[in-house]
C-alpha cells in the first residue's frame, strides 16, 4: 500500500480548511510564531479555523485570550516588538473596533515613528461580511477604516487557494496586516478546490483576472467577486462581455492590472460590500479618474452597500447590500453610455 503515498492529494479543500492549513504550516515553519484570540484553543475558534492548534503547539504558543480585543492586539504588538510573529484572531471582524486604538495608533505607526527600527509581523484576522443574516454586528466589512490608516496591509481573499497563499504571505511580510475572511465562504462547497501540497504563497499586491471579457471591467474583492461573476454570466446572455478582476489585496493595490483591463474595455464598475461613502470602491474610482482618464468611454461606476448599517432580516439586508441584479443594472447603463 505504501507505493501510492507519493500521489498528490486531489481532495478539494474549502476556504476554512485552507486557512487552517496555512496557520498550522506557518506555526511548524516558524517556532517564533504565536496565535492568540478568544476561544481559539480549547474550542478551536468560533468557526474552527484554529482547530488542532492547541494540541499540536501547546498553550504558550496558542493563547485562549480574555475577551478584550484591545489587549489581544496590544500584546501582539509587544510580542512582535520582541521578536515574535503573531496571529491575532477577532472572533468576528466587527469586534475589531474594540481594539481600534491599538491598531491604528500603536501598531500601524510603529515602523514610521521609529524610522524603520521596528517592524511588526502581526496579522489580525477574522470572519467578515454580510448576506448571512448576521445583523449589525456580525456582518461588517470595515476594511476602509484600515486602508485609511497608513502602515497596514489589508487583504481580502475570495478563494481557498488565495486564502492559504495570502495568509502565509501576510504572516511572512513583516508588516502588520488586517486579514478579512469571508465567513459565508468558509464552508461553501461550490468554491472548494484542490490546492497544492507544497508550500506556496500568493504575493501581496497582485490582482487576478477571474474572467476575461472585452466590453466592461468589474473590479471587486471578497464576496462581491462572486456577484460580479454571476452578473457577468447574465450580461453574456445580453451580449455584453465583462472582465472580472479580483484585487485580493487592497493595500498594496495592483493598479496596473486594472488599467490594462481598461485599455481593452474602456468601461468600469467597481463593486464592494461596504457602504459607499469613503469606501474602497471610491478609492479605486478616484485612482482610475486620476491615472486612466483617457481610457474611459463612460463614467466609472460603483455598486456598494447603501450608506446604512447591515440590518438583520432578509428583505432589509438584501435591500441595502449589493446584488447581482443591481450590478447588472449599473453595468448595462455603463455599457450603453
Amino acid at each position, binding site marked *: 500500500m505504501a507505493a501510492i503515498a507519493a500521489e498528490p492529494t486531489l481532495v478539494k479543500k474549502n476556504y476554512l480548511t485552507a486557512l487552517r492549513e496555512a496557520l498550522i504550516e506557518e506555526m511548524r515553519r516558524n517556532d517564533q510564531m504565536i496565535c492568540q484570540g478568544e476561544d481559539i484553543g*480549547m*474550542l478551536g475558534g468560533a468557526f474552527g479555523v484554529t482547530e488542532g492548534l492547541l494540541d499540536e503547539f501547546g498553550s504558550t504558543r496558542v493563547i485562549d485570550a480574555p*475577551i478584550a480585543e484591545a489587549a489581544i492586539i496590544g500584546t501582539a504588538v509587544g510580542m512582535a516588538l520582541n521578536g515574535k510573529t503573531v496571529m491575532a484572531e477577532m472572533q468576528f471582524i466587527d469586534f475589531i473596533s474594540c481594539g481600534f486604538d491599538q491598531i491604528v495608533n500603536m501598531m500601524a505607526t510603529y515602523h514610521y515613528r521609529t524610522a524603520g527600527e521596528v517592524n511588526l509581523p502581526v496579522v489580525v484576522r477574522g470572519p467578515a461580511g454580510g448576506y448571512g443574516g448576521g445583523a449589525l454586528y456580525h456582518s461588517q466589512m470595515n476594511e476602509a477604516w484600515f486602508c485609511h490608516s497608513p502602515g497596514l496591509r489589508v487583504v481580502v481573499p475570495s478563494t481557498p487557494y488565495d486564502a492559504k497563499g495570502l495568509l502565509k504571505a501576510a504572516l511572512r511580510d513583516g508588516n502588520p496586516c488586517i486579514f478579512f475572511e469571508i465567513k459565508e465562504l468558509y464552508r461553501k462547497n461550490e468554491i472548494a478546490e484542490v490546492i497544492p501540497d507544497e508550500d506556496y504563497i500568493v504575493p501581496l499586491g497582485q490582482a487576478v483576472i477571474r474572467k476575461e471579457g472585452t466590453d466592461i471591467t468589474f473590479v471587486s474583492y471578497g464576496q462581491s467577486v462572486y456577484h460580479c461573476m454571476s452578473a457577468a454570466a447574465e450580461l453574456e446572455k445580453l451580449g455584453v462581455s465583462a472582465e472580472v478582476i479580483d484585487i485580493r489585496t487592497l493595500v498594496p493595490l495592483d493598479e496596473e492590472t486594472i488599467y490594462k483591463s481598461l485599455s481593452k474595455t474602456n468601461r468600469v464598475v467597481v463593486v464592494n460590500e461596504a457602504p459607499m461613502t469613503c469606501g474602497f470602491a471610491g478609492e479605486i474610482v478616484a485612482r482610475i479618474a486620476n491615472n486612466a482618464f483617457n481610457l474611459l468611454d463612460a463614467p466609472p461606476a460603483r455598486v456598494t452597500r447603501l450608506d446604512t448599517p447591515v*440590518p*438583520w*432580516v432578509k*428583505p*432589509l439586508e438584501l*435591500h*441595502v447590500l449589493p446584488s447581482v441584479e443591481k450590478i447588472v443594472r449599473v453595468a448595462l447603463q455603463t455599457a450603453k453610455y
Partner: protein
Amino acid sequence: MSVIPTTGTAAFEPLAEIAESTNDSRPSQLLTKEDCLEIFNQLYLARYFDIRLIKEKKRGRLRGTLYSSHNQEAILVGALFGLKATDWISPIHRDMPAFFLKDSKFQWDDPTRSGMSIEEVCAQVWGKVDSPGRARDNWSHIGSKSKRIIHSTSMLAGTIPVAAGVVYADRMNGGDAVVLTFNGEGSTAQGIFHEAVNFAAVHKLPVVTIVENNQWAYGTPVHMGCPTPDVADRAHGYGIPGLVADGQDVFDVYDKVMAAVEHARSGKGPSIVECKTFRAYGHGDHDDDRAMKYRPSEEIEKGRTRDPIAICRESLIERGFLSGAEAEQYIAERKSASEATNDDFPPVVVEYLNRGIEFALNSPLPNAEEGAMWVFKENA
C-alpha cells in the same frame, strides 16, 4: 450644583444592609406569600420561554441562534423583582426573559408597565415588524427608552458606560433611578467594563453591575479570563462593594441585589453583585455539540442538581407557602428542553407564551425599504 453626592462608604466595606442583616431581617424574609408565589411563577415563565424557543426551533418554526438562560433564571427574576418602574436595566444575550420580566410583578398583562410585553419580545425573536426594534437587529439587541431598557449592541460590556450616563442624567433631573446592568463573567475582561465601572465609582452613580458567572465564556473557563477567586473581587479596585450571591437561589439573589440597589439609591454609589451559576447547554445552540467536548460532562450533571426552580420550591415549602399536592403539581426542574412538556408548567405560563408566539407568527416582516430608513433623524 454638583451631581456628585458627597456621602459614601469606605472602600471594601461590605454593604451595611448585608452586614447588619440577620436571617429574619433579610429583604426576602419580608416578602409576602403572594410575592413568593409570583416569584415562583416567574421562574417557570423564564424557564418555559427558553424551553419553548428550543422546541420551536427544532420544529423548524424559528431560525437564528438561541442563547439559553436555562438554569440562570433565578438571577433575572431575583434581580428584577424588587426594582421600581422608574429603574433602568441593560440585559445581554443570555437575558432574553429580562425584557418581559421587568416590572411584571402581578401585572404581566398591563400594557402600561415598564417592561416589554410578551408579544413584543416574541415578535423580536421571530424577526417581525412588531418587534420594538422592527427587526433591524437580532435577538437581545432591543430596548425601549420609555420602558427604561437600554438597547445593547453585540459588543460585550458596551452598555455599562451607557447605563452610567443614563443615571448621571437622571440624577441631574432629580430622579432616584437605579440601573442594573447584566454581564457575563467573561465580559468583565473588557476594557470598557473597567472604564465604565470606574466612572460610576468616581461619581458615586447608582449602577449595580450584575455579573452572571456561569463559569464559561463561550469555550473559555472563568479562571482564564479573571485572575481573582471571585469576579466580585474586581470591585476592590474601584473602592466599591463586591457581593457574591448564590445564583441558583432566587431569594439570595434578591437579597444581595436589593442591598446593592438600596445602597445605590441612597447615593452611596455603585456595586458589583456576582451571581454564581452554571451554563446549562453550549454557548449558543450552535455550540451544543462542541461544548460536550470542551466541557466535562460531570460538571453538567452536577450543575443540574441545583436547579433554581427546585431550590425555590423548597424555600416555599419551608416557609409554609406551598404544601402537599400543590407543591408537587408542576415539576419542570432538572428537565432539558427535550424532556419537558407543557404539563410541567403552570397553564398561566403556557398560555401567556402561546399568545406571544401566536402574535409573532402573525406579525409581518418589515418592508425592504425600511433597511435604508432611520440612518439620520429627519428634520422637516
